[in-house]
């Protein structure tokens, strides 16, 4: 029996008084890869923001239990310390802050939370060298300002590089495939696969089946109007690719 990592129950949430998630249920065990698909506006990105703790979204009902703890009121930083990671669909540019300084601060803030000493510079740099190789991140990018002037592909690689550095329990990849050419897609997927273990889980949020050729999911869920309306194995993604989403919407209406 696998160990439960996160359980989302009856999750409802609003943004600007508009209901986005309307009773979402999802269970993820350690070692699993879940794909969440769905048409535009179905609530996919909202789900990722809510899980990461973006306070623009207001949870009005339901619960999120992460590693035995209710986290829906927890700050984003605390969620991160406990092992939550969101790879952003649109990684934010932070001018003047070097990628390296940013990551070092992130690791040290977490160490501080757990009462551990700051990571020695030498170990940190060794770790950077090791993890950046995973996604073939150019050495120069590490010293540049966070995401500033990065190409679309470089930004996404940088997200996976950060994921590797932080070694999270649950990684949510929000449309990581958008804006990637096929070579970059392979590199990013390859990085994600290498980070997979029996101790962590991955949620892949995507529009298209293509990414799932490289990151193979154990489960595929279809999100529509803020609810999961169908779950299946990876063959569901192929079916969606062929038929689109409309047949599912009608199904539900019947």
């Amino acid at each position, binding site marked *: 029996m696998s160990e439960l990592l996160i359980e989302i129950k009856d999750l409802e949430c609003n943004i600007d008084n508009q209901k986005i998630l309307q009773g979402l249920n999802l269970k993820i065990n350690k070692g699993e890869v879940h794909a969440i698909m769905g048409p535009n506006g179905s609530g996919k990105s909202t789900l990722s923001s809510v899980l*990461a*703790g*973006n*306070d*623009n979204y207001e949870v009005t009902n339901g619960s999120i239990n992460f590693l035995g703890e209710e986290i829906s009121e927890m*700050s*984003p*930083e605390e*969620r*991160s*310390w406990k092992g*939550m*990671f*969101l790879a*952003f669909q649109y*990684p*934010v*540019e*932070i*001018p*003047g*802050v070097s990628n390296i*300084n*940013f*990551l070092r*601060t*992130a*690791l040290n*803030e*977490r160490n501080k*939370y757990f009462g551990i000493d700051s990571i020695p510079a030498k170990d940190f740099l060794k770790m950077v060298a090791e993890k950046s190789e995973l996604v073939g991140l150019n050495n120069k990018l590490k010293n540049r*300002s966070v995401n500033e002037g990065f190409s679309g592909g470089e930004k996404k690689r940088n997200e996976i590089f*950060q994921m590797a550095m*932080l070694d999270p329990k649950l990684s949510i990849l929000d449309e990581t495939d958008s804006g990637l050419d096929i070579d970059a897609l392979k590199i990013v997927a390859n990085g994600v696969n290498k980070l997979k273990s029996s101790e962590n889980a991955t949620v892949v949020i995507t529009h298209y089946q293509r990414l799932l050729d490289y990151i193979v999911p154990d489960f595929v869920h279809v999100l529509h109007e803020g609810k999961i309306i169908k779950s299946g194995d990876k063959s569901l993604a192929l079916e969606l690719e062929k038929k689109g989403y409309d047949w599912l919407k009608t199904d539900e209406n019947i």
Partner: protein
Amino acid sequence: MIIKDLNHNSLLKENSKLDLEALNLGSFPKRKEERWKYTPLRSLKKINFHNQFNFKIEHLSSLGIPKIEGMVIVLENGKFNSSLSNIIDLMDIELLFLNHGNIVNNSQEPSHKDYFTNLNFSFLTEKVVLKIKPNVTINEPINFVNIISDDNCISNTQFNIDIYENSKLHIRQYFLGSSNSKDGFINHRNQVSLKSQSSLTIDKFQDLNQNFNFCNEFIDQEQESKFIMNTFSASGIILRNDVFNNVNGKNCHSELNGVFAPIEKQHFDNHTTINHFVADCKSFENYKGVIKESGVGVFNGKVIVHQDAQKIEAFQKNNNILLDDESKIYSKPELEIYADDVRCSHGSTTGRFDEEALFYLRSRGISVKKSLELMTLGFINEVIEKSNDSAYKEFVLKRLLKD
């Protein structure tokens, strides 16, 4: 300002051709005057100042600054403090002090007269003159530390820097207020003369705590000279810098940069005037304000390109971040151009930190406080980087971030 208890410097009276009695202080600046409209002087006006000097500081380290290597000239409460200083006899530098009686020709009339200039001249307690001979490059910075450590003490000081032809110097100025003193006031004047092909960089650091500091700076540049001034304003009740940079020779480079970070009703004010009198010069200004907790910042920069000063390139920039609703910035970039073939630009921005960026940092496990600190660092880095000494940079940054 209540100055009835102030004494004139007796040496000044003997040596100076200035008729002190005739040097009328004029009227105290009012808010309706354009140059003073953003600067509230009420807190300064009610203080009864004295200029009885005494030394209270035993070690510079008690003022929270890192150990300073090399030549250090320290004034405390308006007088030269030899025990805190480290005067190194450098062949190529001539160093004179008013109170050693070796400044004989002090007849120079202030070129720009206002209340605080007149106050400075008529109650001057110490003046230091530093001259560097022609064709000399001194790489190690020379440090000038001006301390106020006594309640209600006013320190009227002057520092003249003469850089002769083809020489190069780097100066670090510290204006410090002891954390044990309050309502002290350093009313300082810098007078800089740059001869042809010479170069001077001044890093200026202001950390006054519960005291005041006004600096009037006059810079005259001859041809092909280079002047850079980086002003870092960390604390003080009111800090005001008035820079007058006169570019009198062709092919000069003038650069004024600054970071000001007022908090808790502190008021930090930067007024600059760059006068381009002749053609073929470049000037750059870059001031960054980081303001929080009811702090108030002012940037009023003026570049004047006079008639016939063609081919001038002048760029002026002021960017500000307000960290909360109570903080204020008055930003007024000005260009006056009387020549027709110039490249000039000026701009000012004021904003808040991006919420998305804050969430991004927090989602990586960086606390709100640390995230704001990182973003602030990112914002001011461009200016901090102008100083090339990493220990100095780190120290300045720490104080600006109030870390």
